[in-house]
């Protein structure tokens, strides 16, 4: 018994004395990791964006600002970025009330089924997005479940044209990104001690007042992290506009892809990426000035 117990600290010491293990868990390695996988690729893209596109899809490494000038002079790309951000805002605005409601009730509920319900929230990620898209087609297309139902109930006289429009794309994106809103809200709501709400009530607050004064302010960190996740992912969505959107749906990620893959114009695609990256970064900066992001993410995560 006693020998076995004393072996554990000894093992811990041996592990900690191992230079390799200490290197692997040292903060310096974390920084190196970030440099290797985030900073380096971004630098490569930045370099390419200032290079000249060759005739055969190659990159000629000579400095030019021509790619950025092209972005600046052609309205179309600016409009596409603007529309992407707008879709992002719409999806985010939709997901706040939907995600908050679900996250709130999951956070407050004391049911034994909570872990199953939480599992259901992320269950959709077990299925690839492409397959989920086919589910939307079955539901939303002109002779799909929804239209058949509404026609059968005589609510409508001719099928609603929802599939392959902005609506189907926004719907698909919202549903698919909802867990990113639900989970942080759930975490921040469930950390609020129930007695605080009881205290507010004994002090004279109605249920609604207690929610507004106690629960809502303390779940703001969850909402903030949810908004960040949903907005950034939805504005940069690639599959949703391609698979669910209509001919008029224009978003930046598929456009960058087609410039890369179809036009073989790597420098211009890189320049578009950098511009979009800069805009998102700038928006985050503005957001950060309003809300203390670091604090929000920290409390949202605990």
């Amino acid at each position, binding site marked *: 018994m006693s020998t076995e117990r004393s072996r554990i600290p000894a093992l811990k010491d041996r592990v900690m004395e191992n230079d390799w293990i200490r290197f692997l868990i040292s903060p310096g390695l974390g920084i190196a990791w970030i440099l290797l996988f985030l900073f380096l690729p971004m630098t490569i893209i930045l370099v390419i964006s200032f290079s000249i596109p060759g005739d055969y899809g190659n990159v000629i490494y000579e400095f030019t600002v021509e790619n950025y000038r092209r972005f600046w002079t052609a309205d179309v790309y600016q409009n596409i970025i603007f529309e992407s951000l707008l879709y992002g805002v719409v999806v985010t605005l939709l997901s706040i009330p939907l995600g908050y409601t679900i996250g709130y009730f999951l956070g407050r509920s004391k049911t034994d089924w909570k872990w199953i319900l939480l599992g259901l929230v992320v269950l959709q990620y077990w299925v690839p997005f492409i397959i989920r898209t086919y589910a939307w087609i079955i539901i939303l297309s002109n002779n799909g479940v929804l239209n058949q139902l509404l026609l059968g109930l005589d609510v409508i006289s001719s099928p609603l044209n929802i599939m392959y429009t902005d609506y189907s794309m926004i719907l698909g994106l919202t549903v698919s990104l909802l867990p990113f809103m639900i989970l942080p809200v759930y975490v921040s709501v469930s950390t609020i001690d129930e007695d605080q709400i009881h205290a507010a*009530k004994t002090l004279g*607050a109605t249920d609604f*007042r207690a929610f507004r004064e106690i629960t809502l302010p303390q779940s703001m960190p969850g909402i903030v992290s949810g908004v960040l996740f949903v907005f950034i992912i939805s504005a940069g969505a690639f599959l949703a506009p391609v698979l669910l959107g209509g001919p008029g749906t224009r978003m930046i990620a598929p456009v960058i892809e087609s410039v890369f893959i179809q036009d073989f114009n790597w420098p211009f695609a890189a320049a578009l990426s950098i511009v979009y990256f800069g805009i998102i970064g700038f928006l985050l900066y503005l957001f950060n000035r309003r809300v203390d992001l670091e604090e929000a993410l920290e409390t949202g995560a605990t």
Partner: protein
Amino acid sequence: MSFLELDGMRKEFGDLVAVNGVSLDIEEGQFVTIVGPSGCGKSTILRSITGLETLTDGEIRLEGEDITELPPYRRNIGLVFQDYALFPHKTVFENVAFGLKMRGAPETEQRERVEEMLRMVNLEGYEEKYPKECSGGEQQRIAVARAMAFDPDLVLMDEPLSNLDKNLRTSIRSELRRIQDETGVTTIYVTHNQNEALSLGDKLAVMNDGRLEQFDEPETVYRNPQTRFVADFLGRSTEVTGRFRRDDGGPLVELDGGHRMRVPDDESLGDGDQVSLFLRDEKLKLVNGNRPSVNVIEGSIESVDYRGRDINYFIRVPGIDQTLQVSHIADHSTETFRELGDTVAMHIEPENVTCLPAGDEAL
């Protein structure tokens, strides 16, 4: 009509009966403590009075008005939580002012009242701090100030000192008593700590297993426990069983081992009744020199527990096959203590013996 009347309160959680027919009358301005082991239903009573729990049966009347069905926010009752339940995102000022804000009090009145409250709990100048910047004892006092700031009809405290260390507990205990004296607000204080229960209240209610065992002044409850549970729960005593009868010298109990103990008379007892005697450790005295004529028990010291202010002897009495506990306070610092194995005699005055019918929980 009493200020607060609890009438046949009953609360069930599924199959569990947390509160089983409790009735209490509390007068205005009284400080009432409710004591009992954990799970005896005392917290449920508090939560029912505030409206956080709804009673399965029974009635709560405050100043004659039935408040049983009122939602918490319309009751005007302050509650101090065990873990304080301060609002971490609000400053001390906002916490204390919360009740006033909910009642729509103007800003200037909130300022004045919060200042007054913080002065009362000795926390002047804490307005702009956040709860997490305050120590446990300070948070506790903020919680008291918050529960009293909106001038409630009644203040309830749910084990408010249990998260504090011992020294702090004693000082805040006397502070709570002072605050109650100053404000005169009717207070109900729930605890499982018998020191708090005995020292704080004007009245003491002892609860066990969802029932009210006894409700009286603390001295009366301690001296004349009415049930076996109360006799056992308050103080330290040893229970011995025997048979009650009366002879020429008055009432006495024949212990199962043949000892005879004189006991105070109790008209409800008749010859031959099975009884339990409770012998408190501080009422049992070691006999030095002159041997009293009655209530002397002999035994040998089985173990000794030295505790500084007193010494605890565990004395084995072969006749009744039990170990009695005696708390002895040395009269002189040079006194030598008894040692293990010594044969000693103990004496207890007849009026100090608690004699209750055996095996019967409620009287």
